[in-house]
């Protein structure tokens, strides 16, 4: 393992824990904002300072749907971070090439895939209620990352099975 990888692993745990705390704060924050919006007089024009309904009659609903997607996204990010932390812990314990890590990587790949699909939903909603017809923000890079994660989890699973075969070989 080179120096960069060792340093990255050393700081990975506190970074993941920090990101987990920030993500929980984000999820709880937007969940509170969503629940408050149902009881607040003059929502959304009051807090925003302008009448969103004038832009599009479904804009307030679109805003709420995006917030719900944001909460779902926070839950998925939490699941991803927990699995990433578990993978980092197995490296620290000295035995990362196990089938459990391949399964964790597979869950992470599915998580990133769902996050990307949710992002497309947000783009579609924004295009429908705010900027009609403007469907921007698509990028190939996240999809490439999803593909790479699925390939890596497959490679990891195969490697872990090969290693399991070697254990008990004399």
């Amino acid at each position, binding site marked *: 393992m080179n120096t960069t990888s060792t340093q990255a692993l050393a700081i990975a745990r506190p970074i993941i824990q920090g990101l987990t705390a920030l993500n929980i704060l984000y999820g709880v924050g937007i969940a509170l904002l969503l629940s408050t919006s149902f009881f607040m007089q003059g929502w959304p024009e009051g807090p925003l300072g302008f009448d969103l309904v004038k832009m599009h009659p479904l804009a307030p609903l679109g805003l709420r749907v995006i917030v719900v997607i944001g909460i779902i996204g926070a839950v998925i990010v939490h699941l991803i971070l927990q699995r990433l932390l578990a993978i980092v812990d197995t490296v620290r314990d000295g035995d990362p090439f196990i089938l459990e890590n391949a399964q964790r990587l597979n869950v992470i790949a599915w998580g990133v895939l769902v996050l990307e699909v949710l992002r497309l939903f947000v783009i579609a909603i924004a295009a429908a209620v705010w900027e009609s017809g403007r469907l921007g923000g698509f990028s190939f890079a996240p999809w490439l990352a999803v593909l790479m994660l699925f390939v890596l989890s497959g490679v990891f699973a195969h490697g872990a099975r090969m290693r399991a075969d070697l254990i*008990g*070989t*004399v």
Partner: protein
Amino acid sequence: MAIAVRLDELLHARRMTLTELAARVDITLANLSILKTGKAKAIRFSTLEAICAALECQPGDLLAFDPVLPAEE
């Protein structure tokens, strides 16, 4: 596993201990113990060759198929 390892019998017939065999074949005592107790999942040809050379036997003398033994999960 339905494969039986007869290392114990071979060592007994040659009045040899597992420690002596380990020294002769350059295989750790722990690994030979795993083999002797039938806990090994696989055996390398190089290990088989070294044991057969040290004990002057054939692979068939060391390993046997016993259908009575439970198959591997």
